[in-house]
């Protein structure tokens, strides 16, 4: 299959050159996805699809544009690419729009990332339904359950890319996820809801489906009788799952585009101590079986681990070819892979004991952050921590502050990395945080 996709990409480059492009980057993608949903004892939805597309980046007369299509019929494709070249020529020239220099293709790693599990292709209806039933059974084991939906999602994605300056490469990855969402009868008309999903590149890495259903139920049960917590300044413990999305918010402005466009609070801090010395973040595309592992990025730059933050000092940001040239920065990669956050040495229970009193955040609800200033305000759900133990469930609260200040107040990290995310973060403890509630 990868050979067929590669030849499709190479043909695309030829078509683009023939249509008048000076340089071209073409990627061909294909994926197979299967989705089963099983609700309250019955199969509710089966979706089984194969999808493909062709993506083209063109450089002509110092101009640039990008295009994609799912219509791969030969004659349509030819006119699509001809139109694409015409669109490119109608734009304004930009001296920084250049195809990725071939030297950035060099030293492509050959590590076996083990991203393909051949058993995924052999999964059949019976196996998926068996998982669904196991999830369904354990996530219903409580008299307050109103409804529970179990889901299984698996598939394979493949892509190949080729460029007019010599790049050819292909990547393939399998995935398999399952879990369930649970709704419980709570006070009055309220329903408590939560869920849990596990997944990875390999079926063998998945926990037992029944245990995943059990965790989904337990997480939801812990939400019952949730109340609004106090308005206060205090310590915040963010569990490893919720930490992944908080790290994502911190890193959103950590790219050359935002810096060059003066919309990044990271800009004046590059090369400086910006955060707590306990914070170290590495973008690592070479994690075996990693959810975002790869040998090369979306413009062909060879993959390598990139330290973003080391002991609170900003070492690198995400830099692609275009903004690298425009902003005079050396390209690293324009797109994130796995983020590894250096861990601490305490278990979650030890963190809770050490915090003593504060708020334990298990998930976020809405909120946002301003990339230019770092100001943020987020809705949260979780529990109060009282006398070193987890107390009553709280929700309908906000936490508000500035991301730079917050990560300056990072006091402790756990040793409990959440495995089902491409951001591999432990639980995080922050001091002096503003909460709003009652």
């Amino acid at each position, binding site marked *: 299959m990868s050979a067929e996709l590669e030849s499709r990409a190479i043909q695309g480059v030829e078509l683009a050159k023939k249509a008048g492009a000076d340089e071209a980057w073409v990627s061909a993608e294909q994926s197979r996805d299967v989705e089963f949903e099983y609700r309250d004892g019955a199969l509710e939805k089966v979706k089984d699809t194969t999808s493909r597309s062709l993506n083209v980046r063109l450089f002509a007369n110092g101009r640039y544009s990008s295009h994609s299509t799912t219509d791969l019929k030969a004659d349509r494709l030819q006119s699509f690419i001809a139109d694409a070249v015409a669109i490119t020529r109608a734009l304004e020239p930009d001296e920084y729009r250049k195809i990725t220099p071939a030297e950035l293709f060099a030293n492509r790693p050959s590590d076996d990332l083990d991203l393909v599990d051949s058993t995924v292709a052999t999964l059949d209806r019976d196996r998926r339904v068996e998982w669904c039933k196991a999830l369904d059974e354990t996530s219903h084991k409580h008299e307050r359950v109103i409804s529970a939906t179990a889901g299984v999602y698996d598939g394979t994605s493949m892509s190949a890319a080729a460029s007019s300056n010599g790049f050819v490469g292909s990547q393939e990855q399998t995935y398999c996820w399952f879990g369930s969402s649970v709704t419980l009868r709570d006070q009055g008309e309220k329903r408590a809801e939560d869920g849990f999903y596990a997944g990875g590149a390999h079926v063998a890495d998945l926990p037992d489906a029944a245990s995943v259903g059990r965790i989904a139920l337990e997480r939801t049960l812990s939400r019952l009788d949730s109340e*609004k917590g106090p*308005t206060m300044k205090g310590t915040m413990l963010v569990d490893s799952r919720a930490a992944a999305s908080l790290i994502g918010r911190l890193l959103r402005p950590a790219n050359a585009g935002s810096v060059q466009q003066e919309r990044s609070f990271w800009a004046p801090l590059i090369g400086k101590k910006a955060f707590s010395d306990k914070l170290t973040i590495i973008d690592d595309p070479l994690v075996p079986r990693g959810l975002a592992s790869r040998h090369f990025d979306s413009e062909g730059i060879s993959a390598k681990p990139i330290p973003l933050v080391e002991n609170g000092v900003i070492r690198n940001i995400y830099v692609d070819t275009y903004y690298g040239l*425009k902003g005079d920065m050396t390209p690293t990669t324009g797109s994130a892979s796995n983020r590894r956050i250096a861990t601490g040495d305490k278990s979650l229970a030890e963190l809770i004991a050490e915090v003593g009193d504060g708020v334990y955040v298990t998930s976020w609800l809405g909120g946002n952050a301003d990339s230019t200033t770092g100001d943020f305000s987020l809705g949260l759900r979780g529990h109060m921590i009282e006398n070193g133990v987890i107390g009553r469930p709280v929700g309908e609260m*906000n936490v508000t502050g500035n991301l730079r200040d917050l990560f300056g107040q990072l006091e402790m990290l756990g040793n409990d990395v959440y495995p089902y995310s491409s951001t591999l973060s432990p639980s995080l403890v922050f001091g002096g945080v503003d909460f*709003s509630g009652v």
Partner: protein
Amino acid sequence: MTIKRREFLGHMAAGSAILTVPGFLTGCGVQQATAIADATPENPFMDWFGVDQGTVARVMSELTANGADAADLYFQHTRSNTLRLEDGIVSSANSSIDQGVGLRVVIGEQTGYAFTEDLTLPSMLAAARTASAIASGSRVAAPQSFSPAATGKLYTTTVPWASVGIDQKLPLLKYVETKAKSLDPAVEKVSVYWADADERVMIATLDGRLVTDHRPMTRVTVSVTAKQGDETQSGYSNIAAREEFGWYKTERLDTMVQEAVDRTMILFEARRPPAGEMPVILASGASGILLHEAIGHGMEADFNRKGASIYSDMIGKKVAEPFITIVDQATIPRERGALNYDDEGNATGRTELVKDGVLQSYLHDEISAKQYGLKPTGSGRRQSYKFAPMPRMSCTFMEDGPHTKDEIIASVDHGIICETYTNGQVQIGAGDYTFYVKNGWLVEGGKVTAPIKDVNIIGNGPESLKRITMVANDARLDTGGWTCGKNGQGVPVSQGIPTVLVSKMTVGGENVS
């Protein structure tokens, strides 16, 4: 390059396309599949997708070979274009074509779904067999031909986007940039993002209907970064509609640009409000986000048929003051959330969620309507052929109430006014929802005092509805380009509201210790 206003208007009126992307109906290389029977007159949508009545009938027959209560084929072709102006030049464009057919079979509450981007008969038949595997009954009688439904008129255009060249769009982006820079010397960077799309859908249903719809869409966003001393602030504004190029009148663009610059410059003075519970005034227009999150999602019948919404047992009950009526309506011409037909081929309309304070009706797709024994409300929507439809909102708004904006402000001793928003979210079961306020004001002693920024607001849907104690008479729909995401599917929506007072909500902010 600077364009004076008159020149700009000239460009808008006279620009003939040097570059015209081939139109939907003029594309070359259309192939007809083998005709079996073609009882209806020529249908340009069928021609484009390279199918005819016979092909569609054969695929439908295959799709329903193991039984079906309902089934549909959803053919879609979307051509989208984007342009970006940055650092004074338009040097980035994107075009994309998304074409495919989604095949769905429904038995009771069970759905089988497949799609293919290869519109040849063998490929469509294979996808039909995949989707039909959910069923294990016996073949139902599929129609031999499909009757075209009347074409909708909510967003008819005279010039399709495919015939508007980049030479016409480019001066518009330049104008927006120049205008933004002219409004305040502190403005350092301006970027302008353009999007237009022509979407065509053709839906063939098991009961023999053939619905076609041409859905144009466009949006312009301007982002501004300004500097004062060491401080940098950025803000943005956008406008969106199911419209054509001529909609972009200078006045409309000027209003958008002024908003973006105002929203950015005020941030230099704005502070965080004190944290905690307080009265919240929601300004008219974009504050309709309250309705979307606090009640709209909870009224989508897929959650309710599972008993999973906080509103599941509340139909017919009083949920708000008697002067409150909340509506979801897809039939408002040219709005971003407007639809002639939903994505199941059903006629759209007006659904009262709350009438005079009483909860009235959920938003139904065919599956939920059947379960409740009701007619669908035309609310079955999907992001694209890649997804099965589900109940969704369209244009959600509250009607005018008996108060005035001034009365509302005067009634608040310590609180805030919320004006602009970036996003919101809701938990359907618990009813807790949030929205993020980018700009607003403190209200002290019944007067608007200082600007505020960047606070999340959190509340509980039914509780907030009960706490809407005043509703003004200045209802309007927001013109921003809102997209609603649910279960991984994004669809365009509109929202609106008059100025309202919610007597108590939890506002993110700082704790004065």
